[in-house]
């Protein structure tokens, strides 16, 4: 019995010190989180403060560049009294719907095209030149072509959002497929995978971080596409709100609408990041961030 007792106590000491170490690690994480939030807020406050000051002293002409307080007033009016086109949330909803449809169609199309061309060299050699041509078409011109072809309804805005998203996603999906590790593909082939199974279980997972990177940036682009579409002609939506505000020399209105758009983008960004963390949970942490 006496022989065992020192070992037990030694183990107890170890376990206690591990608990302490883990507690310390957790506290460190919490502190870091607080630091990040604090810094973000600090930057925001400094930025808005300088802007407001500049506007007050006419260094930044609020007629052109608005002022934070003016923007806030405008948002408040829109929230409480609605906009000239109806309640604010309807405008947000309309734009969000167009954006979302365009984003999904563009992303799915871009991923599909990227994978198909990435997997098939001949198709890639033949078609990539046409994709490059399409990508150099100015979107604003495309906008009027879409309005002629698809009308002034939702379809033309969605189409514009699609063409904003498609090329970015395509380029990344295509390259992601090309970068897939050849040893891994060979292994899957030998294990008995059909070309389709290889695409599904090897190519797509390895291109995933490429695709996700493009989705991050392209949701913002989809939003831009939808807004530009509304700019060119619409009954409702954030783009029309901006266009009206611009026409009335209402800089506060223009900036207020842009801030609402930014908040929309951030919310969706948050969702994409969640999805990303779920998808790439297999990924090794960098050295030094491992263990506890």
């Amino acid at each position, binding site marked *: 019995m006496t022989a065992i007792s020192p070992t037990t106590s030694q183990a107890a000491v170890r376990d206690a010190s591990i608990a302490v170490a883990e507690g310390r690690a957790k506290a460190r994480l919490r502190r870091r989180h607080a630091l990040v939030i604090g810094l973000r807020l600090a930057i925001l406050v400094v930025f808005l403060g300088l802007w407001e000051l500049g506007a007050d002293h006419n260094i930044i002409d609020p007629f052109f560049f608005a002022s934070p307080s003016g923007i806030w007033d405008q948002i408040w009016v829109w929230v409480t009294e609605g906009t000239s086109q109806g309640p604010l949330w309807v405008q947000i909803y309309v734009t969000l719907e167009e954006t979302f449809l365009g984003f999904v169609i563009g992303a799915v199309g871009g991923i599909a095209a990227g994978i198909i061309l990435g997997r098939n060299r001949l198709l890639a050699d033949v078609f990539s030149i046409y994709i490059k041509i399409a990508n150099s078409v100015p979107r604003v011109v495309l906008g009027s072509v879409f309005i*002629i072809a698809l009308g*002034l309804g939702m379809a033309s805005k969605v189409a514009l959002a699609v063409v904003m998203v498609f090329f970015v996603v395509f380029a990344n999906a295509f390259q992601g497929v090309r970068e897939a590790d050849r040893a891994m593909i060979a292994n899957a082939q030998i294990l008995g995978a059909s070309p389709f199974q290889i695409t599904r279980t090897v190519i797509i997972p390895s291109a995933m971080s490429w695709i996700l990177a493009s989705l991050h940036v392209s949701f913002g682009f989809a939003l831009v596409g939808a807004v530009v579409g509304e700019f060119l002609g619409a009954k409702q939506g954030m783009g029309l709100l901006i266009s009206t505000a*611009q*026409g009335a*020399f209402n800089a506060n209105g223009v900036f207020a609408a842009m801030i609402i758009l930014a908040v929309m983008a951030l919310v969706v960004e948050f969702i994409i990041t969640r999805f990303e963390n779920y998808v790439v949970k297999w990924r090794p942490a960098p050295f030094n961030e491992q263990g506890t």
Partner: protein
Amino acid sequence: DKITIIVGGMEKQIYLPAVLTQQLGYFKDQGLDVELVNSRAGVEAENELLAGAVQGVVGFYDHTVDLQSKGKYIQSIVQFSQAPGEVELVSAKHPEIKSPADFKGATLGVTGLGSSTDFLSQYLAVRNGLKPGDYTLLPVGAGNTFIAAVKQDQIQAGMTTEPTIGRLLKTGEASVLVDMRTPEKTKEALGGPYPAASFYVQSAWLEDHKDEAQKLANAFVMTMKFIATHSAEEIADKMPKDYYAGNRDLYVQGLAGGKAMFTPDGRMPADGPPTVLKVLSTFSKSLQGKQIDLSKTYTTTFVDAAK
């Protein structure tokens, strides 16, 4: 030194005097170095002018009134047209609309909300006994998108300018409901002349640059006289080919129909500004409850002095 002027669409017939002056070489004759910059969005042009990046703008007169309500002073020094040059077209699919009084329940196309076409359309409706809310306004821009909106029956009627008018008339997809291309018909529709296309500058700039302003006025007035004394054909010949690359006949035809809107001497018609104020103050939120000094929105001094 160099003078930069923004034109709200160089290829538009309503702004034709700007490019024509350049083409005729009148600026050079005055010893001016003028650079024309195209900008289709009127707001952009005004913002640039206010920011002091350019010296003048060729655009609609009503902006001078609107901007005064926001505490910014700009003045028209040469008035190009005494009619808006706009036409309210009605789609061939809707023969039941015979006058603005039939707009009830219809969707009216305008170039943009808050634009001149917006105010003019509403004014036409109200003058014919309708209330705001009886009709819907849809911003469809000009040109192709306007035509597409008519074709797709998204608007039953709409206000636009040449060459969109000519195109729709030619294909028979629309007909003229209210014509505001001549001073007479404008008076009939709005109750007075409606000064539209003009050359305006910042009042502050004008103070210090009387000399340049005079030279500019000289050049433009000569152009106005040229227009008054030449046929549409002859004017079209002077314009860059790209402006009528689509269809020259249509261009000439439109010009012949709309030539009458131009003032013969660049002078502001005396009863014009009040009409504009009347139209604007009925609908523009920013004008409501504001006192507008119309005498600060234009001047005929330079036109008068022009030889």
